[in-house]
């Protein structure tokens, strides 16, 4: 039997069925959108097509609000969507900063969360140094027991024995992780040794640790560590360097901290390859303890390049869905702190023999701004501040170069520049207080 007619019938009927299905809407269930067949996606009007690739607001924004939101694209400034521009953004933090400078007492603590962009204390080392010079304070802040980039870090010399049992965001068991995303369990005799290269004078050195009690050896003295909570601080000494040996196995240690008695302290919490959604894995009790014993005045979240892992992605709703819980968690745990969300920087991909910004970078920046807007936290548009489209290509190709040839990471000079953008923006806000007087 000749089936030629059947081939024709099949083709026509199948095309018709596909066309009919293309006219149906997407079906949304609670956590998943079932994508419909769409033969006509290429000929629909742009407004409809872009709706799927533009970030979508959870609550629709009205006209007046939209005007406020649109300020997210202003480069070089900390955007506080809800306040007047004559008032400082990050008001609580800025006020305290000015007060600490004037009174020369009290501490202003900043937690700088980020990915590989701030690895090895990049960006944070320059921001810390500028802020400490201007507002007082010394000490490098938090130093983890061990870190993948420890050997590259200039601001500290840190070493530790190989017998620490490490867990982190990527482990199956994430119980009891510190906000750095790491926790280190000691073996008998595990040691760590850290020298702060930033502080000229001696600073207060403390051990930050979690559950468990035991003995530690410090300068040939055995010190008993009492059984603590999820997060504890043990002051060790006033100096520039420290060497601690843990005598008891199974003690959960996070790291050390180096802080002057007053002034600005900047903690670097870098974790390579993450997007910030991992923060949601942190234990609420532990965060509450940190907020009591070592509270922060400003929390900076710098993420995004790891969300841009494919050159043609334009829709980042999936990321917002996962990131908002992390943001909510931080807000809830540190109700007194101001929060600043820094957008992704530029990231380029190879296109033939050229490098070009990923087409979705502006979409991600907008999605991040929308998250900041809806959750009432401040925003800094790093992408526009760097120079917008293809700026990372210019940075990498400039002489001397400001970024690595992976077209993702600013190098030491580039990081210095980013830190200067941030400290300038902070200074700009601080000056508003002076001029408001």
């Amino acid at each position: 039997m000749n089936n030629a007619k059947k081939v024709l019938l099949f083709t026509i009927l199948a095309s018709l069925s596909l066309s009919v299905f293309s006219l149906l809407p997407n079906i949304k269930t609670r956590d998943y959108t079932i994508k419909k067949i769409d033969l006509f996606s290429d000929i629909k009007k742009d407004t409809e097509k872009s709706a799927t690739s533009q970030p979508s607001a959870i609550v629709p924004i009205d006209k007046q609000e939209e005007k406020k939101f649109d300020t997210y694209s202003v480069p070089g400034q900390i955007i506080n969507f809800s306040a007047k521009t004559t008032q400082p953004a990050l008001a609580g933090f800025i006020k305290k900063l000015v007060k600490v400078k004037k009174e020369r007492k009290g501490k202003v603590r900043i937690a700088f969360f980020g990915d590989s962009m701030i690895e090895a204390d990049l960006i944070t080392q320059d921001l810390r140094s500028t802020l400490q010079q201007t507002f007082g304070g010394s000490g490098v802040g938090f130093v983890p027991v061990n870190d993948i980039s420890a050997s590259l870090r200039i601001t500290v010399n840190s070493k530790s024995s190989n017998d620490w049992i490490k867990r982190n965001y990527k482990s199956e068991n994430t119980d009891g992780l510190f906000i750095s995303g790491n926790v280190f369990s000691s073996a008998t005799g595990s040691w760590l040794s850290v020298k702060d290269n930033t502080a000229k004078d001696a600073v207060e050195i403390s051990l930050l640790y979690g559950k468990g009690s035991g003995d530690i050896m410090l300068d040939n003295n055995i010190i008993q560590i009492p059984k603590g909570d999820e997060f504890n601080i043990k002051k060790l000494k006033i100096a520039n360097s420290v060497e601690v040996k843990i005598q008891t196995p199974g003690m959960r240690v996070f790291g050390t901290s180096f802080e002057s008695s007053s002034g600005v302290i900047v903690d670097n919490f870098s974790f390579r390859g993450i997007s910030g959604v991992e923060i949601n894995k942190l234990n609420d009790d532990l965060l509450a303890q940190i907020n009591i014993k070592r509270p922060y005045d400003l929390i900076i979240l710098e993420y995004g390049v790891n969300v841009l892992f494919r050159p043609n992605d334009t829709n980042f709703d999936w990321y917002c869905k996962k990131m908002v819980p992390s943001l909510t968690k931080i807000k809830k745990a540190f109700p007194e702190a101001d929060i600043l969300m820094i957008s992704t920087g530029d990231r380029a991909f190879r296109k033939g023999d050229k490098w070009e910004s990923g087409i979705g970078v502006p979409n991600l920046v907008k999605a991040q701004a929308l998250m900041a807007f809806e959750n009432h936290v401040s925003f800094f548009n790093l992408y526009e501040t760097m120079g917008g489209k293809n700026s990372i290509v210019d940075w990498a190709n400039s002489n001397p170069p400001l970024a690595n040839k992976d077209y993702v990471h600013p190098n030491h000079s580039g990081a210095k520049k980013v830190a200067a953008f941030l400290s300038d923006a902070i200074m700009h806000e601080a000056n508003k207080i002076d001029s408001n007087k």
Partner: protein
Amino acid sequence: MVDTSKLLDQFLYDPQNPLLFNNGFFVFFFASFLLLYYCFRENVKARTYVACLFSLYFFYKASGYFVVLVIFSAIFDYVLSNLIYRQRSQSKKKALLILSIVVNVGLLFYFKYTNFFIGVCNDLFKAHFNPLNILLPVGISFYTFENLSYTIDVYKGEFKPIRRFDEYLLFLSFFPKLVMGPIVRAKDFIPQLSKPYYVSTEDFSKGFYLIVVGLFKKLVISDYITLNFVNYIFDDPSRYTGLECLFAMYGYAIVIYCDFSGYSDVAIGMARWLGIRIPSNFNLPYQSKNITEFWRRWHISLSNWLRDYIYIPLGGNRKGKIRAYSNQFATMLIGGFWHGASWNFIIWGALHGGALAFHKQWQQLFPSKKPIGYLQNALWIFITLNWVCFCWIFFKSATIDQSFAFIKQIFTKFDVSVFPVFFSHYKNVLAITLLGVAMHSTPASLIDKLCIRLQTAKLTTYIIIFVLSVFIYMQFKSAEPVMPIYLQF
């Protein structure tokens, strides 16, 4: 709702969105083509014109004005082959053949290899030639080989040149096989054009199976694993552990198989629905017991072409052992270079050529006497598979440095302890990879049984299966991305 200017733009070539089998536009293209093809089924001439016009239009939608190139090639080789045929003097015949080879290979070289050689010159002689802005016309590698085989066959007297130009043009441009093969031979293809348009029940069900499964291999398996895993590792291997690199290597083996054989399957399936048989291009390649067998099962149309038009003319195995080995090696080197203009493809070809020569020597040293046992069989398959996968590292990596970085990670940074996290993060990718392995290993007898079952199905059943499949492709096309993770902590 519909943007009219965009609707009109659809009919023009868009470099950002070249026509492939998986575009929405293709559905309407194919339906309108079939309607006309069917209407003119009794009139062979008109039918061929329709197929020619649609094929050229497909070429235009896939590669823009390069369509002129395929028409030029067709005219040139059509005229030349007729001249060769009519020419009495052997030396003139030969001169014409050489002209044909020079022009065909010259065009291929110009478009595909100019910039590569500019780069080589710059490196060797510290010259500073700027690379030219040359785009590669779609399918040029495939139709150049088809042109060559045709003129060579005519020269050798194996084939009488075709009278009708439209048939020759269709042979070159036939849209199902235009972009990614298989490479067909004129003597197999052209005689089918004058036969009545007949699709047997078996053709219908097998064609349907090949189209649906081919698209599944390409759009679900290959694209998903590439985008959500393989590309991450190959882009920057030194950031990943040896374990991840090893998995990426095996993953890529499935990706390239599903991608390439999937596209071939769709081409063969569509051709079958048009009453044209194109021989199959892949036959369970990863189950080969040695590298020679692999090349009989992988990209069969290319290896046959290389054998008939390069290896044998070079002397094959007729001129002694050493010549046979070097011929084998040279053939694969050319075969490697054919895949792309870079040192990586040359190395890839050399590795395969070396392995083929090595296997030949091995066979002579240890001729197999009796059939080998199950375990030994598995061992040879394992060794062959791993060699082939190892070679893919060079095939997939963008640069030689990257290939070596990749290999270095496997041999020096292998860390089994990351497996649990790797597994839990990439479980979807791994599941799809396993599905790819299963599809690769499905024996032909099982497929045949399935197709016989399908033969009794009603047209509505076919349509439901097809629509459901397209629905599944859509879910994968826009599936939530799996992020890369860095495990070397």
